[in-house]
Structure formats: C-alpha cells, structure tokens
C-alpha cells in the first residue's frame, strides 16, 4: 500500500507544511498543559482515581471534538481539488484503479489524523499512570476516535467526489458531519431508552393507535381539533424514525459510555448500554458503504457532464408556463427570467443571492417552510415527551436555532471576499464605480437577511410557548377573527415566558451577527474560500463547543469561577443559562457578560474586515 504514489504525495506534502507543524505543536502543547494542571502535586495523593478520570474525560471529549472538526477537512477537498485542477483526469487515465486512487486519498488524509492521535498517546499514558483508569477504557477511546475519523473521512471523500467546488464540498461536509454528530443528541430527548425499532407495518399502526389519545390529551387542547391527529402525527412519526436511526451516527453517546460519564448520562437521560458497540458497528459499515460509493464514482464518466441549456420558462409553451405558474406560484419559479436590479437595491446584495446555490427566492421559501415545520414539530414532540414542561422544551428549540446558525453562517459568510479573489471577480468589482463600503455592505446584508429569515422561520415554536405561558390569564381564549390581532398582542404581553423568549432571541441575534462578521473577516484575510470556511467553522466550533468542555470539567480541574469566566465567551452557554437549562442554572453572570463579549467581538471583527477590505481595494 505504501508504494501508492498518492499516499506519498498527499501525506508527505501535508506533513511538509507549516500548518501541519502548528497542529502537532498545538495538540502536544494543550495536552501537556492538561497533565501539568492535573498532575498530583500535594503531599497527600488522592487514590480514588477521580483526577485521572477527570483528565481522561476532558481528553476523550476534547479529542472527539478535534477529530470531528478536523477529520473531514482534508478528504473533503481532496478529490474536488484534483477535479478543479484537471489532475483527476490524469489520475483516471493512469493505470491506477479507482480503489488504489481512493485508498491513496483515504490513507493520505487519514495519515495526518492518525499522527495527531499518536502524539496524544504520552498524555493518555500519563493519565493512566495516575491510577483509577482501566487500560481497556483508554484503548476503547482510541478505537472510537479512529472510527470517527474513518467514518467522517469517508463521508467527506464521497461528498468531495460529488461537489463542484472546494468550498461547496467543505460546506456540505461540515453540514452533514455536524448534523450527524449533534442532531442525534437533540433528537435523543424524544426517544425513550427502550424505544423499539419504529418502522414496519405493526410498529407504524401501533404508533398511529396512540395518536388520538395524544390529541385528546389536556395539554394539546389548545390545538384546533383534527390537526393533532393528522399533520402533527406524521411529523412526530418522521422525527421518531430519524431519531431512531440517527442515534447510531453520533460518537458522543459512545464516548460517554466509554468514559462512564454519569453526569452527562444522568442529565441527558441517554441510554449508554451498548452505545460504543452500536457506534463501532455502524461506523465500520457506513465507512465501507461510503468507500464503495466513492469508488463507483471514480471513473472517467464522472468528468463527463452535459452543459446546462439554460432554458427559461418565459420562452416555453403556454402549457408549461401554466403548469409552472401553478407549481411555483409564478413568483418563485426558478426558471423564470429574473427582473432587472432595481434602482434602490444594492447590486452586490442581489448578486450574492443569485449566485448562492440556495439563495434564490424559491429556495429561501423552501428553507423557511422546513424551519417552520421543524420548529412546530419539535415543539409538539417535546411537549409530548416532557409533559409540557417549558424548561425542558425551550432548550430543544434553542438548540435547533443555534445549530442552524452555527451550520449556516460560515457556509454563507466565509466566502464573501475570498471567493471574489479566487475567481478574479475582485478585480472586476474594483474597476466598477462601487465603493468598498457598498461592496461589503451588500455582501453582509445578503447573509444577515438569510439568517434573519431562518431565525424568524424558527419562531413559531416560541409563539406556542408564549401562548402556553398566557393560559389562565384569559388572553389565550380565541375571539372572532377580527379580534385576533389584538388578542395576539394581549397574549404576548401577558405571557410569563415572553421576556425569556425575547432574551434568548437577542442573544442568538448577537451570536449570529458575531458569527457573520467573524467569518467575513476571516474571508477577507484568506485567498481561498475552502481555507476561510474551515477556519471559520474551527473558530466558531472552539468558541461554542470547545469552551463547553470546560463546563464538563468543573471541579476537576476547573473551579466554578473559572468555568463561569470561560463560558462568558460562549453564546450557547449564555442562552442556556437564560432559559435555566439543566447544568446551566448556576451561572448568573454569563448571559449579561456574553452580550458585551459578543458586542466587543463584533466590533473587532468589523474593524478587521473594514481595514482589510480597504487594503484590498487600495491601488497597489
């Protein structure tokens, strides 16, 4: 296998870069610090093994986050880069078989991840010598991490073989990987530990038989009659099925089970028995499937695609026009010739919407509709699961909004400037009379509007919460349709949950603005969109997920004050403290301070963005 020329080119090429050295130094440095902090220095040594377990917990979760964020980066750009540079055609015309090309790519990109894991072994050994840790636990952690790298690496390779550009490959890969890693943790809330397989005719009919009882349930009395038993029952069933399947794709339950993290198991109610085995089997099978799918694509035919004829509805027959007018409500028809840019529109903003893969109006409407359905579906399902306790329902809605922001923002904003420089569009923009400010404003507005639409589309779930909070005040009683606007205002003002919902939305809005400005600033400093996208996801991942690790290590090794101090930079923690989510009830200063941190972060990113854009637009 090591005679494979692709391995030596990819792996050795990667190891020669400064980036690789920086990663290796960072990993060794951070783990060394962890061991130094937790190594017993007192005269009396705690032999219970709690310290070693605490170190292993941070170690395991930290490496898992690192692998989830890093493993897909190299394979995601691996095949599509060759395609863009035209070297894939050379490889496909060489005597190398698709499998040897694929294995070269896989081993080449996984080799670096394995090297990083090897570098962590001394730290693991040090944790082991502190006592209290089973050797099989350490081995299992490494096995799971290797499988995570393999699974997400093979998914990234498959996406890379399908994508048209490097940044698209990275965006889709991160979207899929983070969804697979995080979504099951949210959905897990709805599935009981002993939930049997939900599909099959018997399971489906058994499920349906429960729906009328739920609809008659007191806590769903506010729903119009008939709705609960039809549309919502289908949504619930879909969520149930997806949840049942998705729980096998996230490495988090497996890691929790291996680390025997009672705090997390208790807080989440997750079932830990057999989680590691389940994940290992699913990871191995899914890796093999994705490898096979990618190998099938690696044939000369993959480069043979027809050019789009670009037919527009305007020039098609009346019959087609009528059909499309009905299907797309005409206004949203993607094949309709678009209108000229208006006198009051920022041309850059319009251009950004038009060039974005899912930026056109029909896509925004579809995305909005999915968010509305998801928001209401989650609301309904979580109410069922938690007996209507708002403290249990709110975190789920918050996590939905937060995940959407975290996934969508770098994908939308990390290419704002770098993609122009990459394609040569920046020089063209520079020779137009548009000012740098107008260009940047147009670009930022296109992202802000999209994110705002996403946030608004996820609000219906919160309206239900506000409505439930107003019950008993008289405002919740429906009058005639003419009275509804007034009733709506009354409901909002009288609900006990209105203020917390507003607080949450303000924090999420601030986080969204910060994420956009951060990604845009990174984009202005990078020449390649793929690099800007990867860095943006990594920085936001560290801020929003990485700092959460400190929370899990409260008292061992970090004190409550240190944890509270660290969490002030984390907007997710700020939101969770505002809704008093489990594990986040004792940090009163996090939310108010986080707003200042976010505002300062926004200001820094905005200044960096403006200065760098001025540098880029100034004549050389």
């Amino acid at each position, binding site marked *: 296998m090591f005679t494979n020329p692709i391995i030596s080119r990819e792996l050795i090429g990667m190891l020669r870069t400064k980036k690789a050295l920086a990663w290796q130094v960072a990993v060794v440095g951070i783990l060394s610090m962890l061991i130094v902090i937790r190594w017993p220095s007192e005269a009396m040594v705690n032999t219970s093994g709690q310290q070693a377990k605490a170190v292993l917990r941070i170690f395991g979760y930290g490496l898992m986050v690192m692998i989830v964020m890093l493993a897909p980066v190299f394979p995601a750009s691996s095949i599509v880069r060759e395609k863009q540079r035209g070297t894939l055609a050379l490889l496909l015309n060489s005597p190398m078989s698709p499998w040897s090309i694929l294995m070269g790519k896989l081993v080449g990109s996984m080799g670096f991840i394995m090297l990083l894991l090897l570098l962590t072994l001394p730290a693991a050994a040090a944790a082991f010598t502190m006592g209290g840790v089973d050797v099989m636990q350490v081995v299992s952690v490494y096995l799971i991490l290797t499988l995570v790298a393999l699974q997400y690496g093979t998914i990234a390779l498959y996406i890379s073989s399908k994508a048209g550009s490097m940044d698209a490959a990275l965006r889709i890969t991160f979207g899929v990987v983070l969804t697979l890693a995080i979504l099951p943790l949210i959905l897990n809330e709805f599935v009981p530990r002993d939930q049997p397989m939900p599909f099959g005719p018997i399971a489906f009919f058994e499920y349906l038989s429960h729906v009328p009882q739920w609809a008659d349930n007191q806590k769903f009395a506010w729903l119009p009659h008939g709705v609960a038993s039809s549309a919502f029952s289908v949504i619930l069933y879909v969520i149930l099925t997806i949840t049942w399947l998705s729980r096998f794709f996230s490495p988090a339950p497996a890691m929790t089970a291996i680390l025997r993290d009672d705090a997390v198991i208790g807080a989440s109610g997750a079932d830990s028995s057999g989680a590691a085995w389940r994940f290992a089997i699913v990871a191995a099978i899914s890796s093999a499937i994705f490898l096979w799918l990618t190998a099938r694509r690696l044939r000369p035919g993959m480069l043979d695609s027809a050019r789009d004829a670009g037919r*527009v509805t305007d020039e098609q027959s009346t019959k087609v026009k009528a059909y499309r007018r009905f299907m797309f409500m005409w206004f949203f028809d993607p094949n309709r010739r678009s209108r*000229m*840019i208006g*006198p009051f529109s920022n041309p850059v903003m319009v251009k950004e919407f038009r060039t974005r*893969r899912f930026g056109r109006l029909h896509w925004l409407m579809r995305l909005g509709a999915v968010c509305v359905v998801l928001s209401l579906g989650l609301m309904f399902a979580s109410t069922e699961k938690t007996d209507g306790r708002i403290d249990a329902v709110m975190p789920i809605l918050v996590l939905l909004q937060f995940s959407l922001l975290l996934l969508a923002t770098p994908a939308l904003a990390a290419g704002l400037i770098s993609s122009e420089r990459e394609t040569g569009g920046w020089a063209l*923009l520079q*020779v137009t*009379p548009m000012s740098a400010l107008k260009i940047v404003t147009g670009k930022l507005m296109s992202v802000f509007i999209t994110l705002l639409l996403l946030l608004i589309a996820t609000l219906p779930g919160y309206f239900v919460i506000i409505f439930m909070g107003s019950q008993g005040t008289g405002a919740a009683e429906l009058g005639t349709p003419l009275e509804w606007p007034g009733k709506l205002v009354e409901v909002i003002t009288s609900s006990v949950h209105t203020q917390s919902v507003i607080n949450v939305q303000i924090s999420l809005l601030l986080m969204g603005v910060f994420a956009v400005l951060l990604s845009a600033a990174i984009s202005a400093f990078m020449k390649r969109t793929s690099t800007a996208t990867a860095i943006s996801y990594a920085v936001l991942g560290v801020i929003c997920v990485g700092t959460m690790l400190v929370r899990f290590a409260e008292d061992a090794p970090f004190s409550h004050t240190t944890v509270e101090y660290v969490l002030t930079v984390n907007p997710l923690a700020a939101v969770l403290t505002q809704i008093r989510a489990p594990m986040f009830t004792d940090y009163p200063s996090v939310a108010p301070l986080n707003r200042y941190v976010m505002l300062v972060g926004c200001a820094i990113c905005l200044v960096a963005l403006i200065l760098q854009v001025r540098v880029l637009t100034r*004549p*050389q």
Partner: protein
Amino acid sequence: MSDQPAIQIRNLTKKYGEFVALDDLSIELNRGEILGFIGPNGAGKTTAIKILVGLAKPTSGSAIVAGCDCSKDVQTLKQRIGYMPDTFGAYDNMRVHEYLDFFGAAFKIPREKRRKRIDEVMDIAGAAYMKDRYVESLSHGMKQRVAIARTLLHDPQVLILDEPANGLDPQARIEMRQILLRLADMGKTLIVTSHILPELSRICNVVAIITHGKLRAFGTLDDILRKVRQRRFMQIVMVRREQVEPMATLLRQLLSDESEVTVSEQESEIRLATSITDEVMSGIIGKALQQGLLVGQFHEVPMDLEDAFLSVTRQANTAVAAASAKA
C-alpha cells in the same frame, strides 16, 4: 477632448522595493487606434495595465487615459475605461443576462437603459444567443464574448483587453478579431495584449514591445520592422539533400561571424540570418553553382511581428545580460 490623444503615458515607472517592474514608459495613442502591447511573461505588461485601470499606483510618471489621470481621478476613470482581465471572473449559478445586469447596475446604468444596453452589447459581442445560459456552463470562447460585452456595458472610450484571444480556437479567434476591429470602427481606443502575434499584427495600428519593464520598440508595425531589420532572413532549398551540408559549410566560410546558418536536412533547407547585401549574396550563390551545388530555391523570408519581437527581445536580453555582467 477630441484633439487630445486618448492615452498619454509619460515616464511611467513602478517599483516594488528594489525591483523595477516598469521603467520610464512613455506612450501616446490616438482615438480609434488599436495598440498591440506585447512582451515576454513578466515584462511589465500587466503592471502597466493595472496602472492604466487604476488598480495600481505608479512610483513616478503619469498616465492620462480618456482625459483622466489614472492615479488621481480614479472614479471618473472607471466610467471611461473598460477593462477585461485575463481571468473571466465567473459567478456560479448566474445566467448571462443576470451577470451583465449586475455589472450594469454596478456601473449605475438606469434600469430601462440597462435593459437596452445589455441587448446592444450582446449583439456587438455576438453573444445574444447565450442570454439565458448559465455563465459557468459557457465554453471559453463564449465566456470571452460575454467578457467583451461586460467591458462595453458602460460605453467606455478606451478598452484595455488582457489576452482576449488566449485559448480560443481558430474560428473564435477570427470572430474575436472582427469584434475588435468593429470596436475600433466605433471610435473606441483599444490596448490589446496577446502572445498570438500573427493575430495581433492583423488588427493593430500601433505596436509597443516591452521587456524587463522597458519599452524597446513603439510605433506602427512598418516603423518597427524597419528599425529592427538589421539582418535579413534568407531561405535556400537544395535540389539534393546530400548537398545541404556542403552548402552550409560554404556559407559559413564565406559569411562573416555575425551571420547565422541553420540547417534542416529533412527539408533540404538552409536558413540564413545575415546583413550582407544582394551583390555579396549573388556572388556566394555563383560560387556554389560553380562547385556543382544545385540550388533549387533561393528567396528572402519577409519579416513579421514575430521576427520583430524576437529580434527586439534578443537585443534587449543581450543588453540586460551585458549590464548585469558589468555590475
């Protein structure tokens, strides 16, 4: 305005630290003229173009294009010039008319006027049929046409086109040539860079040859050919292939050291670069015939832009090498 040259470049110099990218460039160009701006890679063409379109500032000297100072009046300059860089600048997921609509709006062309203007420029560039196509699905030749249309949108007086014929097939190259000539007929002033010199020589009224940042030759093609024609190029075709080498030996004996003799035995052909007169040459041919060497064809190869370019760059390289050896 009409009496003034469309482009006036005076003593333009651009330095990046110690490196001199452009050294004292001076050029004047009248309205409706097409300048062929040629030079080897790294000669300073792109630097000069960047200064002319306001993307770079000169270290010293001045450039006035369409009445605007390129380093002081950049906003007005942008309205008066059309720049087509060597990269297309495609935006994915955008149709051609949307692409042109965006640049039209960026140039602040009112909506109604823009609609008509897009149709006009697409007609001029021969791109009307691709109006609804997605930009990324266009072939290279199609993209070049769209790029020309984009450059013309705001009706600029001066067009600066970087490698417009690069990568085009012969048919597309001919069509591109026709488009450029049509633009000159419309009164536009064009600066065109290209490595395809035979193509350039067919459309340019004026040629500027630049190497190592310095202007080596400037003027009409005939002027330049006259200046660089210090040596003549002859072609001798022998009747018998085995006589090619004896003929070459005879030529080397009789000609001065500065003459170059190149032999192609496959084609029974000898090429000669020399500065001798017709009288001396006829004497040499006479001697060859006396020795029984049968000359089938003998003629002077006419000089073209390629030869002029090679001659100028060779001289410049020799001068630069000599200067650096002296230093």
